[in-house]
């Protein structure tokens, strides 16, 4: 009995020591070794007051002399990207979507998510001091760029909107500048988790639940697991962030990345294959799928799984209703999410949403402001991924299909830029007047407008690639290999369990029957011949 107690005591003591060591290692990095080679609080350039973001940037550039030049080449700065396959000019400055429709004409609000200061239609993209280093390198969580200031932080207490009595507290930039460091998931999340105007609204696989996810929600980012930051996969090179839905990698046919391998030059490093290669499963049969099925298809069974809903539909055509006090009407569901806003129209939200599935080769074709659209061709695809079973470049991908009804010009037959945000009389969110708002937006965008506004059904597609579940939560075979399974709409490929081919099936069953008859006959002959002997 004494030995049992000794063992129990030893086990408990071991646990306590183990936990203590783990906690100590976690809090100190690795036994007191600083993680960074520079303590920015010790830099003389940063030991001062900063009246603006530009002053901070100047201080940063005094050491990081080439950083702004690198930033100037990025999509995050330019808000413009030329699609390499279609040559379409995309990016936030050019596309019209079916959420808040366009950044153009609304930069004062939207530029809170630009990595620069003072974004406008006439913004100086060659300016170095307007590069916002803190948006991506703040480690304090205190750096904010409120809506309405064109991407600038507010450094002094400011009443906004003017005359409203609401005070935006000024941010002290000094401690923030002194604590800069590697990009954390919160830096990316400030914009990418809240795209479309709120938490989880736009993407479906990106929301604030990824700030501290458990393993079931994201096997890579789990705090108690691998604890990846966004930049672990989206590993930058000269500030270029790889991985973009404007021109995604539909099929990465390469093996896992190998340091120094010249063949890997220019590869998108933010693919599953760049770490996991082409044969990641222990079961060979599963590896047979990787030339047809994107990893995400099986390993992201649903999106919006983190208890944060995503918008699935937005109908602008119903916007404009007011309550009894004359204010824009607000209707919320039981969980407090807006289902109707007088300034935005009707919404449908979804959680734990099963994706749709398409063949996708990475070519993303947009309907742009200059493209003619016909009401008879509804729904209009804001963007549509191309792909097929036969092109050799496509895989079956999961997507979020977002539907909407948005304003368009029925005479010129184009999508329209709408001036939404602002306190001026032409902003839709101030006056709820579509004609004024569209006229203002189209004028700013330099586009023709007939003066008439109608509404048109639209669809946009969003690839689902985050919120990767652990392997034990991946889709079971039957989810796809069944008559009305998830891949029911996928054409061009034979899926056992889903597909029936009359002649082939008959032939197969014929062979089975023949084999049965043959063995039966053989058995009978043996019995008969034994009796004869």
């Amino acid at each position: 009995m004494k030995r049992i107690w000794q063992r129990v005591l030893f086990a408990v003591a071991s646990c306590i020591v183990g936990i203590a060591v783990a906690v100590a290692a976690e809090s100190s990095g690795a036994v007191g070794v600083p993680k960074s080679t520079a303590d920015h609080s010790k830099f003389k350039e940063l030991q001062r007051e900063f009246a603006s973001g530009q002053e901070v940037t100047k201080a940063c550039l005094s050491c990081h002399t080439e950083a702004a030049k690198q930033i100037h080449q990025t999509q995050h700065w330019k808000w413009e990207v030329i699609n390499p396959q279609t040559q379409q000019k995309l990016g936030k400055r050019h596309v019209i979507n079916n959420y808040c429709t366009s950044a153009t004409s609304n930069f004062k609000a939207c530029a809170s998510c630009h990595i620069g200061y003072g974004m406008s239609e006439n913004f100086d993209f060659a300016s170095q001091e307007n590069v916002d280093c803190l948006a991506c390198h703040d480690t304090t969580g205190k750096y904010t760029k409120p809506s309405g200031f064109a991407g600038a932080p507010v450094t002094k207490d400011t009443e906004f909107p003017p005359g409203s009595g609401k005070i935006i507290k000024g941010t002290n930039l000094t401690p923030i500048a002194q604590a800069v460091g590697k990009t954390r998931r919160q830096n990316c999340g400030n914009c990418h988790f809240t795209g479309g105007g709120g938490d989880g609204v736009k993407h479906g696989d990106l929301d604030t639940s990824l700030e501290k996810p458990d393993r079931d929600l994201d096997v890579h980012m789990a705090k108690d697991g691998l604890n990846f930051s966004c930049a672990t996969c989206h590993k930058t090179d000269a500030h270029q962030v790889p991985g973009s839905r404007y021109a995604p990698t539909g099929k990465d046919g390469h093996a896992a990345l190998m340091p120094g391998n010249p063949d890997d030059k220019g590869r998108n490093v933010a693919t599953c294959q760049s770490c996991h290669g082409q044969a990641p499963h222990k079961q060979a049969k599963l590896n047979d799928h990787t030339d047809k099925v994107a990893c995400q298809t099986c390993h992201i069974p649903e999106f919006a799984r983190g208890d944060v809903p995503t918008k699935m539909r937005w109908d602008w055509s119903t916007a404009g209703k007011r309550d009894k006090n004359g204010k824009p009407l607000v209707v919320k569901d039981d969980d407090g999410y807006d289902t109707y806003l007088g300034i935005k129209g009707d919404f449908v939200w979804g959680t734990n949403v099963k994706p749709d599935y398409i063949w996708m080769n990475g070519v993303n074709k947009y309907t742009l402001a200059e493209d003619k659209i016909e009401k008879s061709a509804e729904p209009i695809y804001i963007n549509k991924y191309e792909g097929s079973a036969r092109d050799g470049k496509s895989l079956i991908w999961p997507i979020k299909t977002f539907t909407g009804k948005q304003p368009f010009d029925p005479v010129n037959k184009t999508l329209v830029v709408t001036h939404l945000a602002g306190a001026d009389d032409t902003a839709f969110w101030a006056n709820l007047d579509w004609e004024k708002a569209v006229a203002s937006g189209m004028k700013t965008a330099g586009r023709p407008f007939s003066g008439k506004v109608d509404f048109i059904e639209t669809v946009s597609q969003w690839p689902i690639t985050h919120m990767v579940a652990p392997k034990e939560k991946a889709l079971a075979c039957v989810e796809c290999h069944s008559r009305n399974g998830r891949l029911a709409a996928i054409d061009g490929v034979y899926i056992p369990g889903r597909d029936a081919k009359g002649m082939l099936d008959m032939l197969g069953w014929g062979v089975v029957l023949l084999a049965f008859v043959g063995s039966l006959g053989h058995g009978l002959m043996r019995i008969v011949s034994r009796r004869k002997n």
Partner: protein
Amino acid sequence: MRSLLLNALCATVFAFSATTALAADVKMVGVVEKIQLAPDGKSAKATLKDNKSGNSVVLSIGDDETLDKFKDKRIQVGDEIRARFDDAGGNNQSKSFRKTAGC
């Protein structure tokens, strides 16, 4: 001795299962009525008026991110908050405390 060990084991299992049963995540949306920061700044009590029931609920806040928002007035009285908290033991320990507002 063996029965003593068995009893201790049973008591431990019971205690753990009881704790687990009592702990439950509660979600609510409400407007901030009051924020009381502790003198050392390491915790706070926030009172929310539940949009659904109209009742006032006091939440305990312990995470640095939210405490910083209180100190910087990024969250203040009158803001609408979507909160998730653990109501075990009546302490209402906040797990998530965010403004509902978007653009």
